């Protein structure tokens, strides 16, 4: 078959249309483990220091102007059963048997703080078709923009921690999640849950300092007394408090899980008991991204296929006409 000028025009028009539709998919790229953003901040939560006072929950609701959640008709208490579109941060309790001893798996209890993990390679950000969820290139905070969001809820499917919540009862629903009090940082303040924590269980600071501090704790002798920084670290000498060192599970949760997170946890009972899933070191999004990348790299395969299709259809048409 000779390629006539008209055919060529058709072909290029077809390709152009496709390029316009999905061409920039060429930008899709697999990437290896993501590095920490330059000014990455985060939270180190230490379950062994937490006394379950829920001051962080109150502070969180105040800072983010969220209503209380309760079964009590007087509405005096805030007692949410779990994270929701009205609760960005929650202290939950694990109990076993008699529940007598703190931070003990058998016949004990332990607290855990749940909120957005601010992943280094966030599935919600990758999955969002309209970039409503973004990871700040400097601080690494995963934030939400309601003006971009179309409400498809793919972020909820993709998040391995089930963090994004949806306002099901609203006619103009939004996705709701912890944004690490990004709005307070502009005023020189920091995450309300950490600034309100009286025991040092929730600690705010630069990621590198937090990881260093966590590693230090894992090397302390259980049962001895040591100094623990309060509220935040990273700027000058922190306020400290002297507490007994707990029997840590030798794992810093969030250091490697799904490629690493900016919310780190230490605990005295296994993390799966606290409702934190056992996760691989690579984000699930990598596999999906890899497949998409292999197929759509430079849109080469789709364009070749389109060309071949046009050729075959054309050939079929001319042979039909001859008959």
């Amino acid at each position, binding site marked *: 078959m000779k390629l006539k000028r008209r055919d060529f025009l*058709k072909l290029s*028009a*077809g390709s152009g*249309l*496709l390029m316009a*539709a*999905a061409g*920039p*998919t060429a*930008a*899709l790229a697999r990437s290896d483990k993501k590095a920490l953003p330059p000014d990455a901040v985060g939270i180190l939560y230490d379950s062994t220091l937490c006394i379950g006072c829920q001051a962080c929950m109150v502070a969180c609701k105040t800072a983010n102007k969220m209503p209380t959640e309760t079964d009590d008709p007087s509405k005096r208490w805030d007692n949410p059963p779990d994270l929701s*579109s009205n609760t960005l941060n929650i202290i939950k309790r694990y109990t076993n048997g008699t529940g007598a001893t703190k931070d003990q798996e058998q016949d004990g209890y332990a607290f855990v703080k749940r909120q957005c993990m601010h992943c280094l390679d966030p*599935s919600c950000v*990758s*999955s*969002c*078709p*309209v*970039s409503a969820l973004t990871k700040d290139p400097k601080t690494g905070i995963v934030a939400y923009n*309601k*003006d971009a*969001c*179309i*409400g*498809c*809820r*793919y972020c*909820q*499917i*993709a998040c*391995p921690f*089930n963090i*994004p*919540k*949806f306002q*099901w*009862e*609203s*006619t*103009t*629903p*939004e996705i709701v999640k912890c944004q690490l009090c990004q709005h307070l940082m502009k005023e020189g303040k920091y995450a309300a849950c950490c600034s309100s924590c009286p025991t040092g269980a929730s600690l705010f600071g630069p990621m590198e300092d937090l990881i260093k501090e966590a590693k230090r704790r894992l090397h302390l002798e259980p049962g001895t007394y040591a100094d623990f920084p309060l509220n935040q670290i990273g700027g000058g000498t922190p306020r400290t408090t002297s507490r007994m060192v707990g029997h840590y599970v030798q794992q810093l949760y969030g250091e490697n899980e799904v490629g690493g997170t900016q919310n780190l946890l230490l605990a005295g009972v296994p993390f799966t008991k606290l*409702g934190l*899933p056992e*996760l691989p070191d690579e984000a*699930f999004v990598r*596999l*999906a*991204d890899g*497949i*998409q990348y292999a197929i759509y790299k430079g849109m080469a395969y789709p364009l070749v*296929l*389109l060309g071949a*299709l*046009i050729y*075959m*259809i054309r050939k*079929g*048409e001319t042979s*039909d006409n001859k008959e």
Partner: protein
Amino acid sequence: MENKQPLGGRLLTGPFVFFLTLLLIGAYFAVQRFTYGLGSVSNMNDGYPWGIWIALDVVVGTALACGGYTMALLTYAFNRGEYHPLVRPALLTSLFGYSLAGVSVIIDIGRYWQAYNIILPWHSNLHSVMFEVAVCIGAYCLVLWIEFAPTVLEKFKSDQLLKKLNRVLLIFIALGILLPTMHQSSLGTMMLMAGYKLSPLWRTAFLPLLFLLTALIIGFAVVIYESLFSSAAFGLPKETPLLSKLSTVAFWCLLLFMVIRLEDVNLRGYLPLAFDGSFVSNMFLLENAFLLGGLLLLMYPGNRKCPKLLFLAASCLLIGGGLYRFNTYITGFDPGNGWHYFPSVGELCITFAIVAVEILGYMWCVKRLPVLSAHQKA
């Protein structure tokens, strides 16, 4: 092409009124959804953010609408002109299937008035599988309308426009094959993101290939189904020789699918999980039982010549293939933390209404537009 005619006849038949009623009930719940929010109508929740509107109307629905894709593939790309009589009716069902999947999505998404953000370059996220699927399905809807346009133009005898359209139709036919190949496989890639929340009986890197194959299998089955149904319902002669050829193609696709599907679960070592007696495992077995049933029925060439057995086999393929897709999105998905999901009455009614619109539209079109091959009424 010239021998296609409208069937004519009365529109307001019993079935027509029945489906119209379903449509009105669904419309009531749709109004409620837009006035009081998604939570007032649906049982979807933060653990199961996607319900039957996505799993049935979009994921299974667009597969059922793949008749146009498979017929275009056979007729135009593989130049099997003999399938030509099946193209137009298949295209029509595709047109309705895809357009209504689009309607479902608008009902489902929370911030529908911002849906156009997807195509605004400063919002588009090219890393998102959802982006690829949304853009592809949107583009394919347009392509389907253009592909079907000659039927409408013939009706209104606008020959000039028809001539112009026929000149560029080639590109749209090619796109009509390329676009479904892209987004039907991506519908599988989509659930890879769910990670551990999706049962290992369904989660595999083969998801895109398996979804593409089910699109083909369901596409072939739906054409067989629809042809047999039209012959029975509208008293047209049967197209059995053509259908038996078509079912041979369907058989080989299905065989390929079953080998990959079962061997993949087996090699990853999760086959024992299928027999642990849980609801999820039983759904896995049920899904594969239907597909294996269809495979066995189609294995014997003699069976492919018998309309009754063809009907049975096509039913198996439709149910089994549909279950595979439904299970990947709902049954096999478990976010943990004690979340449950079962569709509410309102949700079901909206889905029924969507199906009703498809049937009503099909009925109207074959009676008023030149879609089906003209024959003497039997």
